[in-house]
């Protein structure tokens, strides 16, 4: 068959349309979940945290986090009233089994749960040399473990120390904000098991989410705002001594 200019011009748009499908790849697994309709974050209401360690245990069980590694953990701060710059922080086994009585009950004592801040301008995804870690279109920072080389660039880049190398798979691992749960309409394992409601999953794109009212009416802060990471884990009642 002779390909005339007329035929070629007719074929080109068809080829263009077909290419769209090639680029689209595999369809999404959860058909009712629309990536573009969510923007995930979390609210940590510090005055409610009792340091029970439920979140740490739930996270380890839900995500099969190896012993001694943490996707979320709880720190206990002790700040003496004259030395706010130098808080004493402890976190025995990530606070997994709760905390022993405080050594010094004077000054200020409080708990701070930590997890990946799911930064919009995440330093960890920017340094990945192979495109194994990314911010998803719904605002969750995740690792593609089949692509990860285990080079540890991201572990070093995270200003919050939220990543580690899984000793079994030798790939980078971190909080996925329980992506397998939130895409099914459930809350995260840590939020599900938090007895006081100190941790609350927040969908910032959902106008009905109580987070909007909370952010309007409370003094909320993110960790290390000077890093300009645009973190999406919001801390209510965050003390200035918290690092």
């Amino acid at each position: 068959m002779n390909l005339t200019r007329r035929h070629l011009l007719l074929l080109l748009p068809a080829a263009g349309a077909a290419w769209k499908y090639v680029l689209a790849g595999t369809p999404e697994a959860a058909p009712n979940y629309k990536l573009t309709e969510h923007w995930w974050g979390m609210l940590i209401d510090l005055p409610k945290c009792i340091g029970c360690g439920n979140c740490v245990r739930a996270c380890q069980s839900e995500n099969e986090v190896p012993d001694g590694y943490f996707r979320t953990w709880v720190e206990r701060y002790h700040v003496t009233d004259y030395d706010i710059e130098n808080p004493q922080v402890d976190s025995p086994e990530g606070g997994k089994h709760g905390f022993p009585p405080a050594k010094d009950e004077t000054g200020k004592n409080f708990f701070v749960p930590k997890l990946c801040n799911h930064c919009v301008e995440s330093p960890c995804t920017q340094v990945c040399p192979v495109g194994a870690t990314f911010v998803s279109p719904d605002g969750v920072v995740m690792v593609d473990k089949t692509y990860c080389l285990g080079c540890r660039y991201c572990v070093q880049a995270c200003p919050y120390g939220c990543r580690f190398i899984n000793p079994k798979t030798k790939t980078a691992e971190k909080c996925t904000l329980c992506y397998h749960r939130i895409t099914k309409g459930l809350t995260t394992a840590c939020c599900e098991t938090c007895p006081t409601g100190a941790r609350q999953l927040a969908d910032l794109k959902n106008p009905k989410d109580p987070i909007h009212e909370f952010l309007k009416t409370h003094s909320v802060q993110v960790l290390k705002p000077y890093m300009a990471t645009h973190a999406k884990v919001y801390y209510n009642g965050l003390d200035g001594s918290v690092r």
Partner: protein
Amino acid sequence: MAGDRAYAMNTFKDAGHLFRLAGVFVAGILVFLVVRGFLVPKSFGEYGHYRGAALAELAARPVNYAGHETCEACHTEVLEKKKDGKHAHVNCEACHGALAKHADDPASVTPEKLDTAVLCVKCHEANAAKPKSFPQVVSADHASGMPCDTCHQPHSPAMTAEGAK
């Protein structure tokens, strides 16, 4: 025309080598594009500089904690007990642990019986770092070794005139 070309060829008398080299480059680029087409997954670049299919893979993981709504679908009597008590907003699996397997197959997977002497202190043991408004006790002084459910009913722990149970 022919004379022009001959003139040009004479001017760059090694032009043939350049064409051959260009051919090698083009062949190399073609091989690169073919190999790349095979090696780069189809979904790479779907949403950004990563494999788009990874999202579906991460979302496909099975859940371990069923979620309180699943529990409440069957255990309505517990919900009734909890709703006016202090533990109204404590989700089932906060104490009972991960029970998605039980929710999938209630007959063969049954949750463990909890020991209140171990369980309750996880939250209620006194600690200076806990918020002052949170009910805390020094368990050794408070109960002298008795399990908490001797007096308190865990689903609605406030003590009533009629007793705990």
